[in-house]
């Protein structure tokens, strides 16, 4: 059974070796094939190449047609499944990583996965959890299961290796990796965490990548992705990033209950009687920059591809039941987000950009955002207004709506909200910035304060049907 599933996956991986690994770290990389697949609902920007042949089609043919013994009748043993030696295992590992660097289109993955029988899906998850856990288009419950397996086994292996004793250099490296993985485990919380948390992205190597969702991405009416910027790492900030997602989740649940009958809620639009639900994602799906490489756009392109794949994966899985989707992006993550929304078919319903070092898009007209785009800039934040990577989103000409983060007297609440000062204070609890980010995520653009006298006119009536 395992051999069959491994065969299925390894056969798919051979496509990578045929087509070759993608070029990396170029200053201007082409959009990934994952987002290059034809999308009838998308309007490609002028800079987006449309002639790109999606490799996912070949992958799908290979997986469902040739590779699957179910459809071909070919015995699994005819496929290169051996992982019995260290060399085989290393080759498998390398093939998986190559695949994840340039994955098939999420819709292709979703179709492929949906065509598998339940037992095949389970076997695939067991045979190649690193792959299944990170492929956009695979249902999140399976990704969570696969990633938790990898996390648990990697921690066990590292702890065992440290106990057995290795060189000092190896111990230092392994201990650093172990601390990073412990932080992910901590961020997942206990089994009874409320809301339930799922580990939907996991890269255990290097600085690592991880994404944890609070809530259910398959059913939530509102989905908010928190996109980080420079200095935010899995090892150093995963717990803090999930805490931020949890606080935004709480605020959104509270305000949705108080507002009731929210007109923008997909459930309300569909005439459903159920209470609207939310999901917030603490997303560290790309390598964020540090002081030594923040001047380059290379990592922003990596972020662009990962964000686009993430959004298209959600779109593929939700089908006709699309949620209200927002990106709440910070710092360098705003640049990566705007690259994704201007150079790929990915789209969102709302975008909040705070502390941005600049936009590759000239204005909001170049961004695939169906709703409002907000920009927030804190006092004493030297990154905002720098326009280092293009247009300054805070400029009037860019067209974004101002989101106040100053914490002055809130004319809606008639109280003083805490202000955000400096580049990393936007997500502090109790701040005007946090409240506004939560409101953006539930489609309440009219209630977002901008620090002007117009705030006095904002009331909850604006959020009600017929207002």
């Amino acid at each position: 059974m395992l051999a069959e599933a491994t065969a299925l996956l390894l056969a798919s991986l051979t496509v990578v070796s045929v087509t070759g690994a993608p070029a990396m770290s170029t200053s201007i990389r082409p959009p990934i094939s994952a987002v290059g697949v034809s999308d009838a609902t998308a309007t490609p920007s002028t800079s987006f190449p449309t002639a790109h042949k999606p490799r996912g089609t070949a992958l799908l043919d290979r997986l469902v047609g040739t590779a699957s013994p179910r459809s071909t009748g070919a015995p699994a043993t005819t496929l290169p499944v051996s992982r019995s030696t260290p060399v085989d295992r290393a080759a498998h590992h390398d093939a998986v990583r190559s695949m994840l660097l340039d994955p098939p289109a999420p819709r292709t993955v979703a179709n492929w996965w949906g065509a598998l029988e339940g037992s095949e899906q389970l076997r695939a998850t067991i045979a190649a959890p690193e792959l299944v856990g990170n492929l956009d288009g695979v249902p999140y419950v399976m990704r969570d299961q696969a990633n938790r397996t990898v996390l648990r086994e990697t921690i066990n292996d590292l702890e065992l290796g440290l106990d057995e004793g290795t060189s000092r250099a190896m111990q230092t490296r392994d201990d650093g990796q172990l601390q990073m993985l412990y932080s992910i485990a901590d961020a997942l919380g206990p089994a009874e965490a409320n809301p339930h948390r799922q580990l939907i992205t996991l890269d255990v190597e290097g600085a690592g990548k991880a994404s944890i969702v609070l809530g259910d991405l398959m059913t939530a009416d509102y989905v908010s992705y928190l996109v980080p910027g420079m200095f935010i790492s899995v090892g150093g900030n995963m717990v803090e990033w999930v805490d931020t997602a949890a606080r935004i989740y709480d605020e959104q649940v509270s305000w949705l209950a108080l507002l009731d009958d929210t007109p923008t809620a997909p459930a309300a639009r569909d005439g459903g009687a159920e209470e609207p639900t939310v999901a917030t994602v603490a997303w560290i799906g790309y390598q964020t920059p540090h002081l030594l490489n923040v001047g380059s756009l290379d990592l922003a392109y990596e972020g662009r591809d990962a964000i686009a794949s993430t959004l298209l994966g959600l779109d593929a899985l939700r089908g006709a039941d699309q949620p209200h989707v927002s990106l709440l992006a910070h710092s360098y993550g705003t640049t990566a987000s705007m690259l994704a929304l201007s150079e790929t078919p990915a789209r969102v319903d709302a975008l909040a950009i705070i502390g941005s070092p600049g936009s590759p898009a000239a204005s909001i007209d170049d961004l695939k955002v169906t709703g409002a785009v907000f920009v927030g800039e804190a006092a004493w934040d030297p990154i905002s207004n720098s326009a280092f990577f293009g247009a300054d989103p805070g400029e009037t000409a860019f067209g974004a709506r101002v989101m106040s983060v100053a914490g002055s007297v809130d004319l809606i609440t008639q109280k003083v909200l805490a202000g955000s000062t400096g580049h990393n204070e936007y997500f502090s609890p109790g701040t005007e910035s946090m409240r506004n980010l939560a409101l953006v995520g539930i489609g309440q653009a009219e209630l977002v304060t901008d620090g002007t006298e117009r705030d006095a006119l904002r009331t909850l009536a604006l959020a009600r049907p017929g207002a």
Partner: protein
Amino acid sequence: MTTSTSLRVLATAAVLVSLTGCTLQGPSPVTDTEARDRFLAVIDETQRLVGGAWQVDDDPTPRGCTVPVWVTGERYPALRVSENPRGDGQADRVEEAWNDNGLDVERSLVGDVIEIKAESDAGEVYLFRVSDQAMTLQGESECRPTD
């Protein structure tokens, strides 16, 4: 100065500027469990005071915090929702009860929503909101240093 160097300087400045605003509040002289129980007791008592049917969505997962400076800590959240609001009197009773408990209480109006926010000397935060549609009760316990 190159553009890359310029951004690095900006980034360094951002780090320095962000290293502000730390609380100087130390932990109260109780055990971690007692601190959490004390917080939840106020939440539970407020819920009973207001009455009605409540959905308890407390997350047992602790959240990170800092106490007092550079010391990593954690605190526990609470989230309760009731769809049976009973009018302005509920907000009055909550405000009075929290004042009697020695909390620092602020009352404000958020559009049609009455919001009562309170903070204890130990740094516990409580938030009660009521609208025509629902009542919500949130908060976070005292920030306690982790082992």
